[in-house]
């Protein structure tokens, strides 16, 4: 990972000094050993702060929406697909971007790291195979595959789909046998079981909207939950309101979600709201053969009509 960091610094300094970009959006070291903070470097000196490691859980595409300047941006495979979606949806122009692609071997799950730690974590090191958690009086090595974020375990595109420069050699893509095992599991339940399952899943939601705000797809000027004329949904902790929010967010992200996992990583209550978005991904893959953000000239699945689209739900 240090190699990535060095390369990112090098590229950033180069493009900043050449005036190819005004800013570079990347990550810097956080104040906690297991966190990295999104960061915008405006000068070569600031570019020295950039890092990349398995703690870079946010999706930086979230920070380029509607920017008017020239931006350098560090993206993983999934993030690069969101960039594609952003470009298709006119949220940023390709010419404005200098994309530093990171061939990604996955992110470490925050919760898993904390569970392993025997006290304060001071640093988490990652050499793409092993993760070393160092802390106050302990040091632990674990296989990276054991602490991966769950979305990284079923990642279909670890290498960026668009980039101007890579921060390292491309990595082998994963071979996934059972990509939607979790969704299948839920689909096997009866309707009532599913209803209870999701009720339970969301029972702790405090409606802080971290999942929405961490999501690069959620860029509506005013989210429907904030609209007041008409008011679609109440603002209390009422369970129907909570469900409404999560359902509708899933609808809005259908066909566009790249399963980057930023929503779950952001949730302070560890709610697995990716069940919803993953169901929409599964449907788009199975019914329309479409993955979000793979090609610049392909509109999202629900944004196009084909004469042979399955429509068995219509009478």
């Amino acid at each position: 990972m240090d190699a990535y960091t060095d390369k990112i610094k090098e590229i950033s300094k180069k493009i900043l000094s050449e005036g190819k970009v005004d800013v570079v959006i990347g990550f810097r070291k956080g104040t906690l050993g297991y966190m990295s903070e999104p960061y915008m470097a405006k000068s070569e000196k600031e570019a020295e702060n950039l890092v990349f490691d398995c703690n870079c859980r946010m999706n930086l595409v979230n920070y380029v929406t509607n920017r008017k300047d020239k931006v350098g941006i560090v993206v993983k495979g999934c993030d690069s697909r969101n960039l594609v979606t952003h470009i298709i949806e006119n949220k940023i122009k390709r010419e404005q971007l200098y994309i530093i692609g990171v061939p990604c071997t996955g992110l470490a799950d925050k919760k898993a790291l904390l569970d392993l730690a025997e006290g304060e974590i001071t640093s988490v090191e990652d050499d793409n195979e092993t993760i070393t958690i160092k802390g106050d009086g302990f040091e632990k090595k674990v296989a990276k595959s054991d602490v991966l974020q769950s979305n990284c375990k079923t990642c279909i595109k670890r290498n960026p789909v668009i980039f101007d420069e890579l921060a390292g050699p491309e990595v082998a893509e994963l071979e996934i046998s059972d990509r939607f095992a979790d969704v299948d599991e839920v689909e096997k339940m009866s309707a009532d079981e599913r209803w209870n399952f999701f009720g339970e899943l969301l029972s702790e939601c405090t409606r802080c909207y971290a999942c929405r705000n961490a999501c690069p797809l959620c860029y509506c000027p005013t989210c429907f939950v904030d609209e007041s004329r008409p008011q679609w949904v109440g603002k209390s902790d009422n369970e129907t309101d909570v469900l409404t929010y999560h359902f509708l967010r899933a609808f809005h992200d259908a066909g566009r979600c790249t399963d980057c996992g930023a929503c779950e990583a952001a949730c302070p209550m560890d709610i697995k709201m990716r069940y919803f978005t993953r169901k929409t991904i599964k449907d788009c893959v199975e019914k329309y053969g479409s993955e979000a953000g793979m090609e610049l000239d392909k509109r999202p699945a629900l944004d196009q009509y084909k004469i042979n689209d399955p429509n068995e739900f219509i009478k």
Partner: protein
Amino acid sequence: MKMISIKKSDWAGAMEKVQKSYRLAGPVKEKKGHTFRELKDGETPDLEYSETRMSVKEVVLPQSEVMFSYSLDENKEGHHILEEVPFDETPRAAVGIRPYDAKAVEILKKNFMTEDYKDPYFERRYENLTLVGMAENNPSPVNFSTSCGTGPFDESCLDIILADAGDSYIGKALTEKGEKFAAAAGFAEGDSGVEAKLAELKEQAEGKIKSKVSFDKIEKMTILDLYEAPFWEEAAFACINCGTCTYACPTCWCFDIQDEVKGKDGVRMRNWDTCMSEVYSVHTTGHDPRHEAWQRTRNRFMHKLKYYLDKYEDGIMCVGCGRCVSQCPVNIDIRKVCQQMNDYEPSK
């Protein structure tokens, strides 16, 4: 002051006893760790916990609280009259609340119970509440309560303080309310050794707290200097403006009043609000003084660390529990921001 000592094996029994006259709220172990919530009859507050994710301000300021109800249906009795919502007067106790969280309740009180106006909804909950604190022997690494005028063993805002002393809980009843609760629970009286043991534990616990904040210089700066300081945009860049910090914060007191109406019947309720949200500050004209995301982040820190400090002259609006630090999805750290503010030297 009455000393208390109760064997851990007697704890459940005492809680069962006290539930005859009190409704309890306390930490309960759930799937993903401990939650501080209202307990059902027969549930025992589990004091063997380290922290609860969400703050415990819920005991005095629920996330959603109905203020009154009304009906516009002329066929109903009392239509067009605002009707109070019944309130259960049974005394309540927050058992196992951390001392610094209790301090946060005191901070909330500054806002809701001023000399001129006492918020009735807050007041009735507050007056009715006994705070039975559980001192923290092993503060989390992000805890910096000792530099916020409180600490893991702070007695100042509690009615009872308890501490874990191996096979028993020791402590003391600090107020009349506390003594009543202790009597209702039948806590055994502790011997003279309790005081010394408490002091010893306190010293140990406070020694474990490594992180701290200082705000001595913030006090002397002018609001405008700080407001216009150049570091805000950078400090707030990462902020995604979710409400995690404000909801997790035990001292964030903002609320939003909403009507919920079905047909001709409705209620007016208040819900937690978050200054991180775009709709928080938008005017009816459509103008939003804090339109940019970083401005909203600045506002939160300015409120906690400067406006409050100036207005009440009683420290910062933060008890150092560290919840926002550990839960922020992008790792914005109030300790770092406070440091930045304190170190700032306005160029004149």
